[in-house]
Structure formats: structure tokens, C-alpha cells
């Protein structure tokens, strides 16, 4: 497995951070700056932590262009790189309706949201909500659930005709389920300094409902997440995540945090959840299989039944692409691909304004849930992911985010107002890669300021502190977040 890499010394030049003495001092004061969230040199100037630009540890790439989310972990073996390439082709190329001469890629539908993973995760990045009624972006789906009901495993119970997700496309011979339309309501507020702001609250309704009215269910819009570093998060030891749980808020900081316990199809038991907006998927593999199934109508060994409900007649009898439609090898390669996409390095991590913002991030309480640093254990997917010090800015735990963000869609242990802390790495590159900066589970926030202002529940105290910051400090915090 020879891999002639660019020598470390020839990495793109990075400005130095002062002399050896300063660095030594920084190292000696490790406990202090861990506590403070930032380090100062002997003149009281903020300095960056050693290596903090390596957001994914050694699984970091120095690329801040439009392909920043699409590059493999640098240390993959050549064999892994090839299977990464195979997974990439399954991720990017369209699946087609059966029967087709491209037998490796048929079986789409009968109902689906997209023909390929990349349609929603464009350039392995982030989808967005419609900007206005009538616009139809990809990377935005609608989940449904009967309020207060879960099945024997704890999963949401879907609408009898439409299931747990609206598929707005179908193969020839079937009518798409419905067309979701969006309307925004503006809610105004003011910062403590008197500056006003406006937040938009989405309201989703349905047109062209093909199988009866959609009533009596909670409706939750979700955008496609970027994929950076998924395999690293997969490899964080369960014990490290559980150690941060504080379900009864024993430490009295107003923040509880608990892991979701979700059904593992492979293990046939409940395990902790890590992926999805409510941490409803336990592994990258199950997340990938679930997206193939729910978003593209493709069966796999994990989800072997066609994604059909009672209503559309003939759904189960529609031509399929074999059983399963995605063979295990293809699922494995796609999982490897999704797991080993590298994390882009920080930009401007040692800029004074960024460092001030980083201080504020800790000082006002953001870092209580958006945990800056953790370590991976042993990855079962690729060796390169093991033993890395990573900076994902998440605890992967559920937190009550208040009524403003609640969707009333309970998912396993996550209540209707609980959401997983999303990782923040790569955040500052959404604009470059995906041409937008809309945030939160349904893409309602137009930028990081609005995203922070939507925080409620356990995060209300931190949000209020942000609201009370003067303009220049708010700008410092935003600049820091854009450097991630």
C-alpha cells in the first residue's frame, strides 16, 4: 500500500504563531487554556491552540474551494481509495427505473425524492429549503408522524397513506404523492443594542395530494446535511458520548443532554443514535441504507421491503431492480465513501478577530453542547479514522431546543422539541460549496446569526447572552463560526 504523499513540510504555507518560547508557554498552560477555551501569549494576546486548524485530525484537507467537502481522507490505502471511487459513483450517478440495461443501477422508486444521493447532497454538501412558494430545490424533504405515537421500536408512526415521508416524484405509471409548498412568516425582534432582526418561520402545506388529504400528522421539513467527517463521528467511543449525558441536569447548568436510543436493524437491539437531525440513526451504514430506501425507493439488506403504504395500488407489484436493489457490496462501498470524506481545515484560525469570537463562543455557553474537541476510538470502516483528535463542535446528544424549533415529531427517545447538536465543522464553506448559508433542520435560518437566535429551551440562556452582545462582539462570534 505505497502512497507517495505530498511531504508534510510542503503543505500550503501557514503563518507561524510566534516563537518557540511562546509555544512552550502555551503548552505549559494547557489546563488554563482548555478551561478558558483560548490561549494568550505573554503579552495577553490571544493565540491559537496548536493544531486547531486540523478539524478532522489527520483526516483534514486543506481545500476551501467548491470541492472542499468531496475529498477522501488523505491516509486511505490504495484499495480503500478505489472503493471510495466505487462508492462515489453510486453516490453521484442517477439510479434508473427498472427494467434497464444498466442492471447495477436500476430499481428506482416506485416513489422517490431524488434519483441520486448527490442530487440532495450536492458536492457532498448541504441542501436548502425553498426560498419562496413554488421554488423546488433538491435536498429538502418532509417527514410525517402521528403525534404522540411511536411503534414497538420507538420509530414514528407514519400517515396510513403517505408513510413517514412525502415522496414528491414517482416512476412512470404512478402519481407522485404530493407537492409540498412553503410559506414563511416573518417574526421580528431586537438585539439588546436596539438593532432589529427578523426570523422566518416556515409553514409547509401540500398540493396535488394523490392519495387523499394529509391531516392529523405532524409535518417536519428536513434539509440534507453535508457529509464531512461522518466516519470520525461514527468512531467516537460510545462511553465518551454517554459521559457527557446529564439527563437530570445534576450540574445545574440548565443543560441536560442525553443520547438517543434507536433501533439498530443490523444488531436487532436498541443502541445509541448519532446521525440525522434527531440522532435517529446509529451508524453511517444504516443512515445510508435508510436514505436509499426513503429518498430513492431502493431496497437493501437492512431495508428489504419496498417503501410502500396501503394507499397507492400496485406499489409492491411495481417492477423492481432485484432483491435487494442495492447489493451489500454496493452498500458497503457507499458507506465507506460517506464515512471517509475528509473534513476541510479551518481558515483564518489564528486571526485575532476569529480568536476573540472563539473566546466568546465558550464564554456565552455555546461550547457546552457544541463540544470543540473529542477523540475517535477504533473505526470499523477505515483505519485512517481511528485515534484522531477531532474538532466537530458537537456532543451528538439530544437537547430541548424550545417551542420555536419544535416539530412535535417524536423519534425514539427524542421528543418533539429535542434535536441533536449538529456538528459545526465545515459550516463556513456552505456558501462556497452549495451557494447558500441557510441553517437548522429545515433551513429556516438565513445565516449563523438567525440560527443562534432560533435557539431556545436549554440554549435560551446562551442565546440571550448573544442577544446582549454589542455589535462588534457579535461580529467576532460570526467570524469565528465562518472559520469552521
Amino acid at each position: 500500500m505505497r502512497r507517495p504523499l505530498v511531504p508534510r513540510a510542503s503543505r500550503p504555507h501557514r503563518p507561524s504563531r510566534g516563537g518557540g518560547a511562546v509555544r512552550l508557554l502555551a503548552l505549559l498552560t494547557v489546563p488554563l487554556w482548555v478551561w478558558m477555551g483560548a490561549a494568550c501569549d505573554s503579552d495577553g494576546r490571544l493565540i491559537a491552540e496548536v493544531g486547531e486548524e486540523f478539524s478532522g485530525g489527520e483526516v483534514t484537507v486543506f481545500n476551501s474551494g467548491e470541492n472542499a467537502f468531496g475529498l477522501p481522507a488523505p491516509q486511505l490505502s490504495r484499495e480503500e481509495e478505489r472503493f471510495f471511487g466505487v462508492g462515489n459513483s453510486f453516490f453521484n450517478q442517477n439510479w434508473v427505473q427498472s427494467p434497464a440495461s444498466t442492471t447495477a443501477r436500476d430499481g428506482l422508486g416506485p416513489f422517490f425524492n431524488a434519483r441520486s444521493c448527490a442530487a440532495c447532497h450536492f458536492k457532498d454538501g448541504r441542501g436548502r429549503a425553498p426560498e419562496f412558494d413554488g421554488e423546488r430545490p433538491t435536498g429538502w424533504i418532509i417527514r410525517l408522524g402521528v403525534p404522540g405515537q411511536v411503534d414497538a421500536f420507538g420509530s414514528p408512526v407514519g400517515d396510513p397513506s403517505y408513510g413517514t415521508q412525502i415522496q414528491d416524484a414517482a416512476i412512470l405509471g404512478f402519481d407522485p404523492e404530493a407537492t409540498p409548498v412553503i410559506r414563511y412568516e416573518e417574526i421580528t425582534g431586537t438585539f439588546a443594542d436596539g438593532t432589529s432582526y427578523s426570523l422566518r418561520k416556515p409553514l409547509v402545506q401540500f398540493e396535488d395530494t394523490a392519495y387523499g388529504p394529509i391531516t392529523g400528522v405532524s409535518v417536519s421539513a428536513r434539509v440534507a446535511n453535508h457529509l464531512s467527517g461522518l466516519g470520525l463521528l461514527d468512531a467516537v467511543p460510545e462511553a465518551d458520548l454517554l459521559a457527557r449525558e446529564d439527563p437530570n441536569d445534576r450540574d445545574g447548568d440548565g443543560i441536560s443532554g442525553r443520547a438517543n436510543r434507536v433501533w439498530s436493524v443490523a444488531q436487532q437491539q436498541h443502541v445509541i443514535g448519532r446521525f440525522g437531525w434527531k440522532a435517529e440513526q446509529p451508524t453511517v451504514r444504516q443512515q445510508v441504507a435508510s436514505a436509499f430506501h426513503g429518498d430513492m425507493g431502493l431496497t437493501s439488506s437492512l431495508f428489504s421491503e419496498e417503501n410502500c403504504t396501503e394507499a397507492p395500488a400496485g406499489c409492491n407489484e411495481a417492477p423492481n431492480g432485484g432483491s435487494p436493489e442495492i447489493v451489500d457490496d454496493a452498500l458497503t462501498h457507499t458507506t465507506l465513501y460517506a464515512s471517509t470524506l475528509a473534513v476541510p481545515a479551518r481558515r483564518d484560525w489564528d486571526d485575532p478577530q476569529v480568536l476573540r469570537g472563539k473566546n466568546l463562543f465558550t464564554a456565552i455557553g455555546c461550547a457546552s453542547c457544541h463540544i470543540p474537541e473529542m477523540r475517535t476510538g477504533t473505526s470499523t470502516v477505515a483505519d485512517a479514522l481511528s485515534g484522531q483528535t477531532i474538532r466537530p463542535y458537537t456532543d451528538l446528544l439530544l437537547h430541548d431546543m424550545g417551542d420555536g424549533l419544535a416539530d412535535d415529531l417524536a423519534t425514539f427517545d427524542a421528543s418533539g422539541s429535542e434535536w441533536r447538536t449538529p456538528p459545526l465543522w465545515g459550516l463556513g464553506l456552505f456558501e462556497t460549496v452549495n451557494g447558500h448559508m441557510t441553517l437548522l433542520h429545515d433551513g429556516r435560518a438565513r445565516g449563523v446569526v438567525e440560527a443562534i437566535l432560533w435557539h431556545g429551551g436549554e440554549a435560551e440562556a446562551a442565546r440571550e447572552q448573544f442577544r446582549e452582545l454589542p455589535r462588534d462582539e457579535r461580529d467576532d462570534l460570526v467570524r469565528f463560526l465562518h472559520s469552521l
Partner: protein
Amino acid sequence: MRYVLPLLAFVFAGFLGACDSNNIETLKADSLETYATIVHASYEDSYDAAVELDQAIDAFLASPSATSFEAAKTAWLAAREPYGQTEAYRFANGPIDDADGPEGLLNAWPMDESYVDYVMDESGIVFTGIINSDDPSLATIDAALLEGLNEQGGEENVSIGYHAIEFLLWGQDLSETGPGNRPFTDYTTQVNANRRADYLRVVSDLLLVHLGELVDEWAPGQSGNYRATFLAQDPDQALADVFTGIGTLAKSELAVERMFVAVNNQDQEDEHSCFADNTDRDIVTNAQGIANVWRGSYTRTDGSVVSGTSLADVVAEEDGDVAGTVNSNTSAALTAVNAIPDPFDRAIINQQTVVLDAVDALQDLGDSFVTAAAAIDIIINNELPD
């Protein structure tokens, strides 16, 4: 005449002595001239071969017969030879990969056959696609219609370019051993024969339009085209683009996307030129294009040779060992791809070792371009952009 100046510059630089610090800069500038000259010559050859293809198609449509149909197919295969070599200029920030650029209009694959014309299933012919549609919005098959429809709704809806012409000449490859076998009567007595003829005529015309744009972008002595921009920029940036292009094609696009994925999927249709069974030549010409760029030498369709200061010369100036490694990797890759038997769709099943050896050789070559670029202080990445 246009090759004389760089040559003079090279000779003059040689007089200054190998240790002159300006020498490397001169070599870099000259190698970029060579690159631009080779790019232009090979697009010119591609254009000329496409003109012959267009004439053969016109001749066939004017007088359809098995013989004139065969002549059109022969012209298509000949047209792929120079074009395949130009793929070494992809992934290099050049005009071929512009956002609305001609790559998707020229060479996108795989074809969504049923989006264009009839396909076969168990029950026989299924009349689908644009050609057999009675949708009033598709009533007139012309350039504007087809350009607008190409790749609509995702990469699979490929309706124009080389592979659309290939499908219209060969038809679906339903054979275990040979290529597709479309009868020429598809253009005489078959349902929608006239619409099929219109379609073929239009895609052939469009091929000329899009190749002509590339020839113009790389034509010498013009201000405002891409060649002028390319040569005016920082030579290190231009060299980074050139190395990224050949590194990415060798390591990722050719070795993995076009070869390893097909071996791994074991799907007869998962190949570049699946209708004509010409994928083996696609692979060889791609590899040859990479060698052309590294060696600074291109053999034109008429047999004449265009050459000048090469990337190999630039790298050898700084590190002879590294240049030597790339030279031997280049030869090894060419040998390995030429060893893959025709047709590729059988080789991936019966001759996997031979195909995988070529994948190895191409990946070695792609990785050695990263090392070679680093030897002249240029950092590149050879991973496939999404």
C-alpha cells in the same frame, strides 16, 4: 513557424548553462507553450475528424445502405481517436470544464438510451424517447431543442454528444460478445425513421459547433481566448492546472471511475463506449493523451509530430530521479492499457487481472505526477472533483 520561437528560447537557455537560476523559469514557460500547442493541435484533429464523420453521416442519410452506414460507423471510431487524447486537458480549469462548458455536450455518459430512442425489453421494441414522442413540444428536432434537453434532470439524461451519435449508429449492445447491431433500415422503413435521421443530423452538427469552440479557445495569436489567459497567468498556477489534469485523469477518473468501477460492478453496460464496444480505445487514447502532455509530444492524425519543451524537461531540471520515475511509469501505463483485450465489457469479466494491472499502473502514474509537481514546488491533488 509557431514552434520555432520556443525552440530558439530553449536553445538559447541551454547556452546559459544548466546551473543558471533563470533556466527553470524559461523551461516552465516553454513547457506551457508546448502544452498549449499540443492542446490546439489535438482539438484541431478532433474537429477535422468530426467533419469527416459529419460528411459520412450526411452521405448515409442521403443514400442509406449497409455500406454507407458502415462508413459512418468507421468515421465515428476514427473521430474518437484524437478526441480521446484531449481528455488529458480535463480537470485543469480549462474551457472544456466550464460550468456551462462543452464537456457535457460532447462526451457525457452514460447514455440514457430510452430518453433518446427505442429500447428492447422482454416483449420486444419499446418505442420511447424524444425520437418516438408525439409531445407537441418535441415536434421539431433541432439544435435548440436537443441542447436544451441534454442532461435535464441529471447526468443520466444524456441526449447529445459522441455517445448519442454512437447509440444512433450502433443501437443498444445486447450482444455478449460484439457491439450493438442497429439495422440501417432504422433510417428508412422503421417507425419514425425521418425523426431519427433529423436527430442524427442535428447531433452531428452540434458536435462540430462544440469542438469548434474548443479549437478557437486554444488558437494561437489571438487575444481574449483561453490560450492567451493560460499563458499570461503565473506559470506555477498554469503548471498546477496541467499537472492536476493529468494526475486526476490517471489516478481517479480513468483508473477508478472508468475502469475499476466497471470491474467491481461486473455490469456489461457500465462502460464508456458501450454501444460500439470501443471502450478499450477510449482507455488507450486517454492514457496516450496523458503521455503526450508529460512528454511534450503529440502525433497528429496525419502522422506529423508536434513537440517542444516538456513537463519531463522541467521536472528533470530540478530532480532527474523523479522525472525518470515518471518516464518509466508513463511507459508502463501505456503498455498496461494496450494489453487490455477488446471488448472491454468482456475483459472486465474474463481478464480482470489484466484490467487491474492497468488500473495499478495508471494509479502509480497519477501518484507520481503529484511527486513530480512537488519536485518543482507545486502542490496538486489528483482526487476526482464531484
